[in-house]
């Protein structure tokens, strides 16, 4: 077990080192949330609704976390293909799923950083007062939500290992999931039949818990039930991911395409 934790840790640290060593990374990760925030706040200003501000600001932050945490792990596997490292890590005695978990946690941390960047932008550049009514409740909800995002990424990671073109599918899926999870607008605005999908996604519950902690100093039972749904969904995503990694292990060796890109 200790050995597996070490693998998760080195994957976490190495990914942070790799990512932050690129000057382009800083540009990408400061510019993208700024644009998200700008678009969302423009909607907010023309809507004339006070509550929409919460969706706009936190939605922009969550959007940044979403894009980073959800498919960062998948993209890192794609990067492995390009660098020719996927075969080398596959023939080590460590499980590739442990490496992916370490990377997912690193992306979760980067995602959290983006959320705080958006909060600072909203407060100091757009002049929107962002009093967080319950900072402790906000922090817990935010951390659990970003971990949950990363765990959805883990569900897709085995596909990235198996299928070399999976990045194209993932890019399309990212938008679909983003649209139905009630991140920048309430899911009540969506057609009823879409709600089933929204409720299966942990960001729906996580975003709701974040907004509750921002609005109310005393956390209502809804906040805790939302977090419980986040935890249950996260555990389910991890179990699915573990199962898929097991299922695909033999298939990866049958196909033998790890070295191709």
């Amino acid at each position, binding site marked *: 077990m200790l*050995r597996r934790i*070490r*693998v998760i*840790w*080195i*994957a976490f640290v*190495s990914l942070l*080192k*790799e990512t932050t*060593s*690129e000057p382009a990374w800083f540009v990408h990760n400061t510019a993208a949330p700024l644009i998200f925030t700008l678009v969302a706040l423009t909607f907010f200003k023309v809507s004339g609704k006070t509550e929409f501000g919460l969706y706009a600001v936190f939605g922009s932050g969550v959007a940044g976390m979403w894009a980073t945490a959800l498919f960062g792990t998948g993209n890192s596997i794609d990067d492995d293909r390009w*660098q*020719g*490292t996927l*075969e*080398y*890590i*596959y*023939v*080590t*005695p*460590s499980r590739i799923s442990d*490496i992916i978990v370490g990377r997912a946690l690193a992306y979760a941390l980067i995602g959290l950083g983006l959320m705080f960047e958006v909060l600072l932008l909203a407060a100091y550049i757009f002049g929107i007062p962002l009093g967080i009514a319950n900072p402790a409740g906000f922090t817990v909800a935010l951390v659990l939500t970003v971990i949950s995002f990363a765990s959805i990424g883990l569900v897709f990671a085995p596909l990235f290992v198996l299928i070399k073109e999976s990045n194209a599918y993932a890019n399309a899926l990212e938008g679909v999931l983003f649209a139905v999870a009630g991140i920048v607008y309430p899911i009540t605005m969506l057609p009823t039949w879409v709600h089933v999908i929204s409720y299966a996604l942990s960001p729906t519950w996580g975003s709701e818990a974040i907004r509750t902690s921002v609005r109310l100093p005393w956390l209502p039972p809804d906040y805790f039930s939302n977090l419980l749904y986040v935890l249950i969904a996260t555990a389910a995503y991890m179990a699915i991911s573990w199962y898929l990694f097991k299922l695909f292990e*033999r298939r990866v*060796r*049958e196909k*033998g395409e*790890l*070295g191709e890109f």
Partner: protein
Amino acid sequence: MKAIETFDLTREFVSEKGYLFKKKERLLAVDHVDFEVEKGELFGFVGPNGAGKTTTVKMLCTLLLPTSGTARVLGRDIVERPDEIRARINVVFGGERGLYWRLSGRDNLLYFATLYGIDPAHTKDRIDHLLAMVGLLDRADEKFGKYSRGMKQRLHIAKALLNDPEVVFMDEPTQGLDPEIAHELRGVIADLAKSGKTVFLTTHYMFEADELCRRVAVINHGRIVALDSPANLKRHVAGQRVIEVEFFGSTEKLVEGIRQIPGVGLVTTEDVEQRRILKIQTADPASVVPKLTAKMGDSRMMDLRIREPTLEDAYLKLVGAT
């Protein structure tokens, strides 16, 4: 117990072509291959491009499943017990890729040391020792992407030794390297074998196999066509001499003409920058040379020499190169 044993090892690749009407294409990359490698042996696996060398290595290092047959590495079945094999082997694929370009040399080794489960108490010493061994200790904190091609390949060797493997698979490790660096690397490979490790070396440089390997298997179209010591393989061209002609000009008609000369065996050509080199195997060079010079026509001959055959000449005869 042998280091490596294969039993009818076979791998077929199936690919689909077309959009609406998909057509399956099958390629038999490795075709019922049987061989054994002793512990501590430096074993050569040679063949032309596409002969099945890399596919064989990938199966033996548990990256790829055979379609039929199997193999054992250190007594463990590659299909059933890959995890036990992975801890005791390591692999170097040729080329510059395979390590993280944005991480330093040291960080790359630290990452792989952890994946190989090296005891953290010994990791730093092990990494420093290996970096010193491949001459990269003073450049260890530079990014891998900034390394020269030779430095990258040396770091690959260091990575391959992190877990002190019993068997090291090296797939064309010197391909594309400068002659001086390739020579240096061959020294490192020879030292590995001297230290008791089993080295499975694929190459298409025959002089490299001749210099390093105790035994060499020649693979062509997925099948092993010969397996013996370099000295015994050279006997395939016993009694032959090789005429080498360096010239400028076109080759196609010339080669056809030379093949008609009585006593001429295998004829091959090689391009070296703008020059061409003809290699003609024959048992009777004295009678072939005058007829050969008469056939040269407009081609400008720069040099002609007669030499003893090498392992490369034996290999060319075995794989039927033209």
